[in-house]
């Protein structure tokens, strides 16, 4: 297929194919949900439809990636590069795993609203726009689309006061952060006269706007907005509460895909559009990374609840990803892509375990409740151990390769202090990942009947198995994913030469 001329309708449609396709699927599912929303069977069918849509979209994305679709002509709203495909794959993967995870969870919690899956699909569409948008407004709208859907998903369990509170907190703070984000867009628009990322980059470099106050404040506001979405310290404070209150599959989705989407847009904006102002934002990202790593890991140590612990752990991991961003180089973008994939796998796997083990209200699932799990459910315990070790960054797992990649990018940028902070964070994280392994394997179950009801059934079992195997696989043989991630990162940072003629996408 090669190159698409985006000035033609067909070219444009093709460029948007995955998003269009998934949106259409979501519409269809809405219709289905409107008609059939009575019982568990409908619910499951809706889930299957959503799953089919996600898989189909994934296939399309992979197909377009393999065909190396590129655009010719003027810069467009949507990027056509490996970074987009890579991020789309991560989001879709996250969504697919979430759907799989949801089947039994929704059943168990009697969340009989097929709209759940609609919103999941719509949120995924929003993420894909965030990963692919080449214009701040697309990124903003993608972000809002995702956010609106996820606000609702967080509170979808209407019987739960926790879920409602989670949704409210997430919503209020999210909207608040959106205001900053939007302000950032406005200021950058004012400083450069455009919102197209390629053109911003061009203007920034050609006009030497690296120290322009309006641009800098705009960049700062953008960072704040992104910082909220990715739960970077000190914009993270919503995350533990919301992750805690939301239904576990949604939490997994938030921790993995939503965060990855925020990062995808952040990486694209910073490395593509604002690389000319690198010295200005690098320092801030550096500090955010350091704070996020340390605070996330430290507070996680103090947690007793599994879900909150994972929430803080996901904050810490945002710190690692921010460290990759702080390196500000192509390697960092590649490291982000690889780590995002690894992180999605291991985090969803870990939450899947929480969803399964927390049969009587996963909010109350303490780490100590897993005591002796290995004696009753050895495979589940082994899976959990794999996720914990991968999150810890232990060799043989994808998490290790990802961390190695990130460190490589950081050190390439000579940020040795940051590297040390990162490894210090990893050490701290041993303080809360290992106890999980410890209680599961090294203590006897508290009673004869403990863990009787813990069961990995059907799709949930599939999620744990697949994620665990993938985590190990990428930990031993990361080459394909690694090469793709590198090329994705490379694509992003070495942006094509900006066109000289146009200053704005619109005609005058």
């Amino acid at each position, binding site marked *: 297929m090669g190159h698409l001329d985006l000035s033609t309708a067909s070219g444009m449609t093709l460029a948007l194919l995955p998003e269009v396709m998934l949106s259409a699927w979501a519409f269809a599912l809405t219709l289905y949900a409107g008609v059939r929303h009575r019982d568990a069977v409908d619910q499951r069918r809706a889930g299957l439809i959503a799953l089919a849509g996600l898989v189909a979209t994934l296939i399309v994305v992979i197909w377009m990636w393999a065909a190396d679709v590129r655009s010719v002509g003027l810069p467009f709203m949507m990027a056509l590069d490996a970074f987009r495909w890579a991020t789309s794959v991560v989001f879709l993967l996250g969504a697919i795993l979430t759907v799989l995870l949801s089947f039994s969870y929704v059943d168990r919690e009697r969340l009989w609203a097929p709209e759940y899956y609609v919103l999941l699909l719509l949120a995924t569409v929003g993420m894909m726009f965030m990963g692919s948008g080449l214009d701040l407004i697309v990124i903003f709208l993608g972000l809002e689309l995702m956010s609106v859907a996820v606000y609702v998903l967080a509170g979808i369990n209407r019987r739960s006061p926790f879920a409602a509170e989670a949704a409210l907190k997430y919503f209020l703070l999210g909207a608040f952060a959106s205001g900053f984000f939007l302000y950032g867009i406005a200021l950058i628009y004012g400083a450069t006269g455009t919102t197209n990322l390629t053109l911003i980059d061009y203007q920034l470099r050609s006009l030497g706007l690296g120290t322009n106050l309006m641009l800098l404040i705009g960049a700062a506001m953008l960072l704040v907005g992104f910082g909220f979405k990715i739960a970077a310290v000190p914009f993270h404070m919503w995350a533990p509460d919301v992750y805690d*209150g939301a239904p576990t599959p949604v939490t997994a989705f938030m921790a993995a895909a939503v965060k990855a989407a925020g990062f995808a847009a952040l990486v694209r904006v910073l490395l593509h559009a604002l690389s000319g102002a690198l010295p200005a934002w690098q320092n801030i990202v550096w500090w955010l990374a350091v704070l996020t790593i340390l605070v996330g890991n430290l507070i996680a140590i103090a947690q007793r609840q599994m879900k909150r612990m994972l929430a803080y752990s996901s904050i810490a991991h945002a710190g690692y990803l921010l460290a990759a961003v702080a390196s500000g180089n192509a390697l960092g973008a590649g490291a982000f892509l690889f780590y995002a994939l690894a992180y999605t796998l291991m985090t969803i796997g870990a939450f899947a375990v929480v969803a399964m083990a927390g049969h009587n209200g996963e909010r109350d699932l303490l780490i100590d409740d897993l005591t002796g799990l290995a004696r009753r459910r050895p495979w589940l315990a082994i899976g959990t151990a794999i996720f914990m070790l991968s999150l810890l960054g232990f060799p043989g797992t994808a998490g290790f390769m990802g961390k190695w990649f990130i460190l490589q990018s950081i050190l390439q940028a000579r940020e040795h202090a940051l590297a040390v902070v990162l490894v210090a964070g990893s050490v701290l994280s041993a303080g809360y990942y290992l106890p999980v392994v410890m209680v599961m394997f090294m203590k006897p179950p508290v009673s004869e009947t403990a863990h009787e009801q813990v069961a990995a059934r059907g799709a949930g079992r599939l999620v744990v198995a697949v994620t665990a195997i993938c985590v190990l696989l990428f930990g031993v043989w990361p080459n394909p994913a690694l090469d793709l991630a590198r090329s994705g990162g490379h694509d992003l940072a070495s942006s094509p030469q900006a066109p000289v003629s146009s200053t704005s996408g619109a005609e005058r």
Partner: protein
Amino acid sequence: MLLGPALAVSAILFSIGVAGVLLRRNAIIIFMCVELMLNAVNLTFIALAQQLGPEGQVFVFFVMAVAAAEAAVGLAIIIAIYRHRQTLDLQYINLLRG
């Protein structure tokens, strides 16, 4: 040439919105303050649009759509929380913490 003053007024309005969010405890009023922030940004867009072309106005259009969407969802969430807690005072909404 009112661009500078407009940007300044916009910044002031935005800051007032932020201050409002800090000042209030009622979820719905906080949400209104957020709307105020959005409107402040809109003013920036509009003021810039006069100098940079109509795209700025298009953005405002999108922002309005977003605001509408957020309002719909946000108010639904507020209703949902009210059903559970019979209050919108955030002081009393902290089951989740730690």
